[in-house]
Structure formats: C-alpha cells, structure tokens
C-alpha cells in the first residue's frame, strides 16, 4: 500500500520481472508530461541498456506505456548517438577533443561579449530535461554569462496556459487537481487536445470517469480518437475557441446552470462576462465556429448540469494569437459553474514536454526567476541574488522570448548556446530560422543526436541520454518525480550539467557553480524556490522516493505537498477571488482569402515526439509513421481532383511543401491537418504563421491560410 495521495491512481498489484544477469533502473519516460514510470533493463556487467520492463507500482501509469515509451530505451545504444565533440572546420563538422571545443566556446563567448556586450550571447533552452538542468541554465545565463537573453522552447508549448491560469486563478500549475480526480468528474470537457494520441496514459482516467457514467465533450476540428468516443463532439473551425466557450457560457447563463453562490463568494468579473456573452447566441456561435446549434446547447447543458467536472485543454487551444484568452475562457466554464477545489472538479492543461511544468518554473523563461518569481520584482531579485551570492544589480532584466530571440540572431544576438531543443523544426517559418542560425558569429549546440539544428552549429557537444542522468522532473499534474540513471557516459559524452559548470569555471565564474551532483543543484533550487509560487523547499530526494513523487507547493520539511489546489476556495490573488474574464472572439491572425482559401492546422501523432529528433531514429516508430502527410476531407480532395496517397503541393504566404494526401472523413472540409515532427523539406513549419500571442509570445501554429495545388505530373493521371 503506497502513500495515501496515490490511492485513486492506476497502479497495479504486480511485481516487475528481473531476468538473470540484469538489474532494473526505476525511472520515468523521457517524452511527454505524463512522465510515466518505467523500469529500464540494464546488463549488470557492462551497463548496456537491454530493454524495458513495466513498472506496475507507479501510480500515474501502473506499468502502461505508449509506443514512444515502450521504445524510448532504444535511443541509449543507438548507432547515431554523438560520442565525441565536433567542431566545424572548412565548413564541415569534424571530431575534436573536449579541450579544443571548450577553449573555442569560452574564447568565442568572451570575444562576442567583449565586442557587443553581455546580452549578445543568448541561450535557447528546452523543457525535456530535469528541473536541476532547467534551474542551472537560468542561473548560468544570468550570473555565468550575465546575459538577459535566455528563453526556452516551452514558449511554443505551455506559455499560453501559463498566462491564462495566472490571470484567471493566480497560479500556474498544469492541473489544479491530481490526475486521479479525472475519474471522479461527472463531465469532462477536453478542448484542443487529442488526448488519446498525445497523452494516451490519460485514457485510463477518462475511461474511469466514463465507466461511472460521466459525459465527455470534445472540442476539436478533427474527429480524433478522443473525439470518436465523445458524447458531444464540437468540431469547431480552427481559431474559434473563444467563441465556442462564449456560446457555452451564454447557454449556461440563459438556462441558469451557473453556481450563484460560488460566483458571488469566490469570483469577480461575472457581470461583465454575462453582458458580453449575451450576443453569443448558439446561432451566432454556430456561424462563427461551424458547429451545429443543437450540439452547442447539448454540450452546455451536459456541462452545466453536472455536479463535478473538469475542463482540460492543450496546444489546440493555446497555440493561437488569442491563446491566453481561450485558456481563460475555458477556465471560466469551471468558475461560473463552481467546478473548482473539489474532487473531480478543476482545470488542467496537458503538458506537452516531459518537464514542461518544471521547465517553466525555475528561471529558464526570460522574464522569470526560480520559484515562478518575476525577474522584474525587486523583492524576488533581492532574494535570488542572496541565494546565488551575487549583488542584485548583477542579475539582468527580462530579455527576448524564444521566437523573438531567433529573429534577433545575427542582429543583437551574435552567439547562441542551444540545448535540448531543435528550433529549426519546431519554430514557425523554419526556412527563415535556418537563415537566422546561419547568420550567427558563433553557434554551439549540446545534443545526443545530430539534430537538424545541430547540423548548423560551429561546435556540437555530445551529451548523455536521459537514462544516464539523475534528477527530478515535474509532471502534468505538478507532481515532482525522481528520474534515475545508469552511471555511465558512453564514448566521450558528458552530462550537460557538468559541461555548463565547466564553462562557468573557464569563464571565471566557477565559484557560483560548485555542484558535484544533481542533488546538490536540487538542494539549491529548493532554497531558491522557497517562498515563491512554485515552492519546492520541502521536497527532498528521499521524500520523492518514499511518496512516489510530491506535489508542489511543498513549503516545509514536514509538508507532504498539495495534490488538490483551492480546496479552501482561496484563489491566488490578494482578495482570494478567481477572475472571470470577458473575451471577444477575434479569430486567427491570418484569415483565409481567395488566394489562400483553406485553413492549415498542425499537430502531433502518437508515434512521434516534438521535432522527431529522437523518435524518427527509433526504427519501430519510424516504420509505423515514416513520413508526414496532408489529412484532407474527401469532399475537399474531390474539389482538387486529389486521390488518396497522391502528392500535393500545399502553400502559405511563407512557403510551400509537397506531401502525400491522406483522404479521410475525420477532418473538417475547410481545413487540412499536417503533423509537424519532420525537418528540412518535410517540415510543415515552413508554412506556419509566426504571429505571436501578445501576452504569452506563443506563435500561432494551429491556424494559417494555405492553398492546395495538384502537382502537374499527377494531373490527368488515371488512378486504378
């Protein structure tokens, strides 16, 4: 029997099998925010990685794994792993020694910063790495390099959810509730998330709710595997989330399905919303969104009448020029119906990256210091300066956000350190991003595979894979977890946290980076986060092992964390009241036109992760989904005389790409969908719109206007 907090999860009562000559390393998957527990099978003698064994006793997934999780270990012994540092000589990356590489990096940092100022060297970081590393990157940027320009790829992922949660309920933890609460919801509204494919391990919880008779409402332009089993599928036109939420609010207010006591005692702003949504009648919303009137009414009734319920959303809602409005508007659904602060009632966002939660808490964001503190807050600066042992004036202010940073390469940013990200695949207008990266005076990248971005670097440093490192991650629900690794560094690979400390040492800043282990870094992180919103002070490695993870905030040694937020209905604002905010529907930044009449939306498939740098190299996953495709409705395909499997040209004002058509009824007739996990000529991000959400700075990946063209060589061909 585990800790009480894990009682309602999906662990199973079986032991893992240990085979002769092997040992099991109990760790977590390196991919999405679910952070499923798994055992990695390791040869006792030579420490080689042999396979995976279910970790039945881990609460979140009870041994279950998606195809990425089952095959994740296959990276460890992969033939394409980088084993030596590489330096660009005569235009080609050639093997070099660590000393050569480090000398070059340090001299270039000093040269660039001496010539152009401290901020001319930037760091573009990622969230698929441990809290310790995320914290270290933030600290290294501020007091190792002294640059204000650090940001991270979570800007493309979780930033709208972060802003939306903060402005509505005053705290940004991916889920206000433990994941087990999903089972106790009477209604689930899932928006802009193909949960079944992108977070498959949430499905046992969703099925748990349905087995109790819960209703499922799915808001998605495509009839995904999640929408397939919905009671109501609101198949909205991409970019109309604000309108559909306003429509649902309208019906619930009209039919008095709101919780007046909750609104009066625990929220502000209801009257403004009530006024604003008057004009969002089902008929009007139907016009905007393309969703049938009766579906809107039914969904609103199902949601409003249920005693408990959760709204959950993901990138489909957030990667928009109005992403933060949409997030807050979906939170509004829970606030007006009083579905907060109790078992089965709350809001959640499905974290995309493995450490999408922790990665946005401890100072990687350009506007932030550890513990979710604002870098512009004098008190926060004072406190962190004290922890780091520097003068407050040494900590720079906020710099550029991720995409703005890329746009500044070669201009105000002359040198870049890239770690744990592949922006030349994952950014909008990737054609331009390649040019930005090439215009740098100096570009250094740390990775364990030669990613498309690393191919352009002047220096590539080989780092270890996740199974060779120790530390903590924070999962989708705000549970901090221990990841454990094997004590090995194949070839000349080094752990990236050690490399960063080494660079700091060579820059003469070594006294601030005296860490001998991830636990050392974590213990400093604990102090740095103390008193902040994301307070990890009471979390220790020992406690994490004992409790199978601890939810933040955990402010004291005695505390066991807080799985469910707001049970006291005191929201994180001075008056303790949540904010019901009113939003007008503005629609996407780029509207369709005569020339570009079709909407393009991008997203994930179950077989791949982010830019595909890891999953495309795993044979089993590559075989299951080798190439991208254009998902297109039969009626639209007919209009262009396109057959299933035929390559078609798809263009936006920013570029074009040729991909095979996948004709299917699951997508709307006015749009096409393309997965984004491929690089170079197969990168759909050549086409996407770099318009940024004003508050969160997330690019609008989910909507842009495109045209389709039949490729001449296929015109007039007869298909059998």
């Amino acid at each position, binding site marked *: 029997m585990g800790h009480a907090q894990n009682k309602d999860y999906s662990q199973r009562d079986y032991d893992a099998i240990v085979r002769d000559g092997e040992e099991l390393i109990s760790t977590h998957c390196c991919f999405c925010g679910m952070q499923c527990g798994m055992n990695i099978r390791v040869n006792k003698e030579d420490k080689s990685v042999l396979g995976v064994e279910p970790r039945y006793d881990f609460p979140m997934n009870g041994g279950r794994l998606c195809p990425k999780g*089952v095959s994740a270990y296959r990276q460890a012994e992969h033939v394409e792993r980088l084993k030596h540092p590489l330096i660009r000589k005569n235009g080609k990356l050639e093997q070099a020694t660590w000393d050569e590489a480090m000398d070059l990096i340090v001299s270039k940092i000093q040269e660039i910063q001496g010539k152009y100022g401290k901020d001319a060297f930037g760091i573009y970081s990622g969230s698929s790495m441990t809290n310790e590393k995320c914290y270290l990157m933030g600290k290294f940027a501020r007091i190792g390099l002294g640059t204000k320009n650090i940001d991270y790829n979570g800007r493309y992922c979780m930033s709208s959810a972060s802003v939306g949660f903060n402005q509505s309920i005053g705290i940004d933890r991916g889920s206000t509730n433990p994941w087990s609460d999903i089972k106790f919801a009477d209604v689930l509204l899932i928006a802009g998330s193909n949960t079944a494919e992108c977070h498959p391990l949430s499905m046992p919880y969703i099925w748990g709710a349905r087995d109790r008779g819960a209703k499922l409402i799915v808001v998605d332009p495509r009839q995904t*595997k999640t929408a397939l089993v919905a009671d109501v599928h609101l198949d909205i036109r991409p970019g109309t989330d604000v309108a559909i939420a306003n429509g649902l609010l309208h019906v619930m207010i009209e039919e008095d399905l709101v919780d007046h006591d909750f609104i009066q005692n625990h929220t502000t702003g209801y009257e403004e919303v009530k006024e604003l949504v008057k004009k969002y009648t089902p008929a009007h919303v139907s016009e905007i969104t393309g969703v049938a009137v*009766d579906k809107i009414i*039914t969904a609103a009734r199902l949601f409003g009448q249920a005693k408990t319920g959760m709204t959950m959303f993901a990138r489909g809602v957030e990667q928009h020029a109005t992403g933060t409005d949409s997030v807050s508007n979906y939170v509004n659904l829970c606030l007006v119906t009083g579905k907060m602060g109790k078992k089965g009632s709350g809001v959640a966002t499905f974290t995309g990256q493995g450490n999408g939660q922790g990665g946005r808490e401890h100072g990687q964001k350009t506007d932030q210091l550890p513990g979710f503190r604002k870098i512009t807050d004098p008190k926060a600066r004072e406190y962190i300066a004290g922890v780091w042992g520097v003068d407050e004036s040494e900590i720079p202010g906020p710099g550029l956000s991720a995409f703005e940073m890329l746009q500044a390469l070669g201009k105000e940013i002359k040198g870049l350190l890239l770690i744990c990200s592949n922006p030349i695949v994952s950014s909008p207008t990737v054609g331009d991003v390649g040019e930005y990266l090439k215009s740098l005076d100096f570009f250094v990248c740390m990775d364990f595979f030669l990613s498309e971005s690393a191919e352009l670097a002047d220096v590539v440093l080989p780092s270890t894979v996740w199974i060779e490192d120790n530390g903590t991650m924070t999962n989708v629900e705000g549970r901090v977890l221990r990841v454990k690794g094997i004590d090995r560094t194949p070839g000349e690979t080094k752990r990236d946290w050690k490399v960063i400390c080494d660079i700091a040492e060579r820059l003469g800043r070594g006294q601030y980076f005296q860490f001998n282990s991830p636990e050392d870094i974590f213990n400093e992180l604990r102090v740095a986060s103390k008193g902040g919103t994301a307070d990890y002070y009471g979390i220790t490695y020992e406690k994490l092992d004992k409790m199978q993870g601890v939810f933040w905030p955990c402010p004291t040694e005695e505390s066991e964390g807080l799985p469910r937020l707001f049970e006291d209905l005191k929201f994180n604002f001075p008056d303790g009241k949540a904010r019901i905010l009113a939003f007008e529907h503005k629609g996407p930044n780029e509207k369709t036109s005569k020339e570009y009449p079709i909407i393009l939306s991008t997203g994930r498939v179950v077989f791949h992760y982010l830019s595909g740098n890891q999953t495309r190299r795993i044979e089993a996953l590559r075989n299951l989904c080798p190439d991208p495709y254009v998902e297109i409705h039969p009626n639209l395909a007919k209009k262009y005389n396109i057959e299933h499997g035929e390559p078609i040209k798809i263009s936006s004002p920013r570029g074009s790409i040729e991909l095979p058509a996948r004709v299917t009824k699951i997508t709307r007739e006015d749009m096409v969908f393309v997965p984004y996990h491929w690089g170079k000529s197969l990168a759909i991000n050549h086409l996407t719109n770099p318009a940024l959400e004003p508050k969160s700075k997330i690019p609008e990946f989910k909507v842009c206007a495109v045209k389709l063209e039949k490729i001449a060589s296929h015109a007039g061909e007869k298909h059998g």
Partner: protein
Amino acid sequence: MAKVLYIDYERCIGCRACVIGCEECSGHDHLSRMFVDELNPGETVAASPTPCMHCVTPACAESCPVQAIAIADDGTVLSASLEKCIGCKNCTYACPFGIPRVDDVKKVMYKCDMCYDRTSKGRPPMCASVCPTDTIRFVDEHEIKSEPPKEVQFKWDFGGTVIETRTVIGMPDTETNRYGFREGDGVQS
C-alpha cells in the same frame, strides 16, 4: 483462477504499443506476435488489436502434423516448438483468425503465447501490461464470461462451426455511434 485477455475494441487508439511491447517479452526473440488493424480507414480512426484468441479447441494445434503446438495446463495455446515445427504453414491455413505466422528464414511458426514466461509467473502479458488505454486487459476468465461489463463475444460462428475462444472481445457500441460508424445527429450517445 485462469486469466485471459479481454479486449475492449472501443478503447483502442491504434497506437501499437502492444505490438512493440510484444517484442519486449523474453520468449519472443524481438518478434512481435500482435496485430492492430484500422477498421475503416478514411471513414474513422477506429482500430482494433488482435492477439491469439487462444481457442478452447485450437484449429492450429489440431492441424499440426507434428504436434508442435502445445496447450499449457491453463489453456494457453503456445507458439510452435522450435524442435518440432517444420514450417509447413498448415496452422496458418487452419486458424480462422489469421494468427500464426511462419518465419520463412527459420522455417518456424511463431504466434502469441500470451507471454507464457510472464503469465505463468502471475504477471500480465506485455500487451496487457503496456496498453496505455486499457483496451487489452488481463482478467479472470470466469468473471469476464459470466458477468461482463458490457456485451462481449467469445463464441464465433464460422459457417456453422462454432469456435469458443478464451480471449474475450468487448463489443463496440455502434448503436449510439460511439465508434464512428453513424453520421452524428449532434449528440453521439
């Protein structure tokens, strides 16, 4: 208590974790014995996994000329014995579910043995262990056949020949369009 595979088609997301997981079983030589099919491509994303159905009277074993296919005490129909199998493919013709495969290089049949090295030690097979959506579960045979949570099928009529299987299939609710076969009328259940 004999345990069997229970497969609820409605929950399958077609992710093939079971297919890859099957390779991870120690007795499987990194060769998957699991199949996943798209049920109606182009119309719906519905998919379904198919392991061995572990027939009560298995046609594969009955048709084997060299008795290479053994049935374990608990009813599990094992993969062909490497020593006995002659790769004649009789079993592949006999099986009404299309389960056995023959490795043309090794000239030996291979099929799902319900991860016998795991199930004989009380652990679920790999497919049921890893299935992320609880589509494939490892449950008590008597319970699932006598008190199923929904409509199930484990007797199959092949032109008058009825075959009972130990693997139990949970039938999708096509009546209320939970499986994407009926154009929605707004509310899909």
